[in-house]
């Protein structure tokens, strides 16, 4: 497939846009010390102004919060937390969900039935509630937030991978592999996994979009980092207290960051799905 044609393919524009957004935020996270104009908890306005949020100005394009912290800088620094949590949780969820899904789907049997029942039960439960429950056990930290998200998204990967494996198993391909005399582990690793990989990529995009929102929810309830550390959801939580006093910038910008980053992943996932012609993802 010609590289230059990626934009012309169905979903190509979406994938490109999504990837750009994701890369933008990842770059922001990596380069935060260079890019952020101020430290996340640096009182960047004169002390007499530090009691009230200051509106956007040339020095502070996104304004400052009530403690005199620069909102733009906090969004830049906050991206580190979000990127870490989402990346870590995606890796963890895949590491658990994908192999389980592969094996469970491939071999079937009573283990598969029990595993599916457990995963389905968890999957059917509102993810944000589950994440909150787990996160409040573990206490606020990036690692703990990632684990909480993992609990929510392992079933997602598991179910998708398993469903895809079952789909593959029903195809003539599998009969051809069995009759070719290939051993099971080889079939799983060399044939099923590569064929499931696009699905995993799609699920990665869609689940990560959702994970960002769940992370924001956890953060909103103070379950990811401890203030004054910067994190979008937490900043939005405190920022909203000033909305009615007119300090809209404390609400608008963190919210935009959350939504746009999540949208990046959504575009990636959906774009990939369309590219592969498989649009039916729940």
């Amino acid at each position, binding site marked *: 497939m010609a590289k230059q044609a990626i934009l012309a393919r169905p979903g190509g524009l979406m994938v490109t846009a999504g990837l750009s957004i994701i890369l933008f935020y990842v770059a922001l996270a990596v380069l935060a010390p260079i890019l952020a104009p101020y430290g996340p908890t640096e009182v960047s306005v004169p002390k007499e102004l530090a009691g009230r949020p200051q509106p956007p100005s040339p020095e502070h394009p996104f304004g400052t919060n009530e403690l005199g912290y620069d909102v733009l800088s906090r969004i830049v620094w906050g991206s580190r937390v979000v990127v870490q949590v989402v990346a870590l949780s995606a890796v963890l969820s895949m590491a658990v969900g994908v192999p389980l899904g592969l094996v469970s789907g491939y071999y079937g049997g009573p283990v598969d039935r029990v595993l599916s029942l457990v995963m389905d039960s968890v999957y059917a439960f509102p993810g944000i509630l589950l994440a909150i429950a787990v996160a409040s056990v573990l206490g606020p930290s990036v690692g703990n937030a990632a684990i909480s998200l993992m609990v929510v998204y392992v079933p997602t990967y598991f179910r998708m991978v398993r469903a895809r494996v079952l789909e593959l198993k029903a195809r003539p391909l599998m009969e051809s592999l069995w009759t070719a005399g290939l051993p099971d582990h080889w079939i799983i690793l060399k044939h099923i996994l590569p064929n499931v990989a696009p699905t995993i990529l799609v699920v990665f995009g869609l689940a990560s979009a959702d994970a960002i929102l769940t992370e924001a929810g956890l953060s909103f309830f103070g379950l990811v980092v401890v*203030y*004054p550390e910067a994190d979008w959801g937490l900043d939005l939580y405190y920022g*909203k207290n*000033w909305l*009615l006093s007119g300090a809209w910038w404390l609400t608008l910008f963190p919210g935009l960051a959350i939504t746009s980053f999540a949208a990046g992943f959504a575009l990636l996932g959906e774009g990939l799905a369309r590219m592969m012609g498989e649009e039916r993802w729940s």
Partner: protein
Amino acid sequence: MAQKFNARLAIAAAVVLIIILAAGFYLFAGQGGEQAAQAPTVVIGVTDSVTELDPATSYDFFTWEVLSNVMAGLVTYDPDTGEIVGDLATGWEAREGGKVWVFTLRPDAKFADGTPCTAQDVVRSIKRVMTIGGDPSWLVTEFVEDVRAIDDYTVEFRLKQPVGYFLAVVATIPYHPVHPNYPDNEPAPDATWGGCGPYKISEFKRGEYIVLEPNPYYYGEKPKNGKVIIKFYESSQALRAALEAGDIDVAWRTLNPADIRDLQDRGYNVKEAPGLFIRYIVVKVDAPPTDRKEVRQALAAAIDRQELADRVFQGTMEPLYSMVPSGLWAHYPAFKDKYGEGANIDLAVQLLRSVGYDENNKLKVELWYTPTHYGDTEAQLAAVIKEQWEATGLIEVTLKSSEWGQYVEQLSQGQFMLSLLGWYPDYLDPDNFLTPFLLSTANTWTGTGYVNPQVDELLQQAMTETDQETRAQLYKQVQEILAEDVPYIPLLQGKLYVVLGPNVVNVEISPLQFLIYSSIEVTG
């Protein structure tokens, strides 16, 4: 199929139509609402909630406020002078050196359905509290040996030991008589029979609202309004928005400081009253590094309370230099005397250096806070304290947080080096601001580990003493030791704010910090 489709369309159309109708209603509600009101109704908004409408089990500030408006106790506080005055009781007498208390009741007290309220009701209610053994029952069981009705209008309490401030204890909610309908030995969390106070509960929708109407048989002054509705909001923003949208007349507990100031700037009438709510840091004295007195003193010295009040609370709290809040009679600002008013960085640095800390060997401390229990400003409070301590150049602060349910357990297990906490008094006496914190047998819940036999003795002495002058003297000594030993660093004292909608002309707050609903007057 076609029919089904049309049915669906019809439903959709109906929904749209109803929404348009609703819109229209709201458009004209302004005009319509005014003529309808004859007995003015007051709508109060709070972010609190009413938990259990049973004085035997409820033990939170706001439920007590509501109960205090629907019930009457033996004694109460005069809103103007702050003195304890009779309410159901017309007189009382302390006998046997404060071990036996006898109250004489007024004969005209009646419950909201006209049932007279007698000494037997008082006795039964208090015994009920003791039997049920709910959360606040210790307020009775700690003090009262026995209670009995001598006749229909005389109640006698026999205490376990003489208590100088027993009247302040009797003023608390568990001592308020309840309607005979309340079952004797089981709690009635949803009961609305109430007591014999100025209001009766006409409707209670948990988590949504409670409606109070005047008790027609109330012996005291008639309320200045026809009905009180209290609506519960999830957040202070919602509360504020409701006020601005005109959904409520009075915005009561708890608006964010920022919103109070902002509403004031926008011309809302904001009523301010001194408050008895205090904020302080619990210091763990039995583990390094805060086991060294110099370290604790340095931490206390480096605090700039005014900055905290201004930057975090927009001036809605005041600096506090003792655990006993100013305004209460035994208040003595011991920390101001010892460490000065602002941040005493020099002293802090000197103290820290004296125990071997320097720029290369900084004092490392952990400060814990709980993010929501004390409102949304808590994280900012911690952040600014961190700034202040780190301004010494010799301290490195790590902030940690856990949510309330976990926080209190960790606290009581002494897991926190430094932790932010707050305190509402159970009864209005300096004892309630000192004993629970400093008496070594009573302060285990704070996890401080503070034990000082001298303090224990002083507090015991003050408890049984009935002379206020002598007690004040004893409490002053305790507060001086507090500033020296620093098991707690008092930070701030709350002020109370009621933001009034345009129609509200008067509102009063009782010395116990309760809003007196009957005092709220609205125009039109």
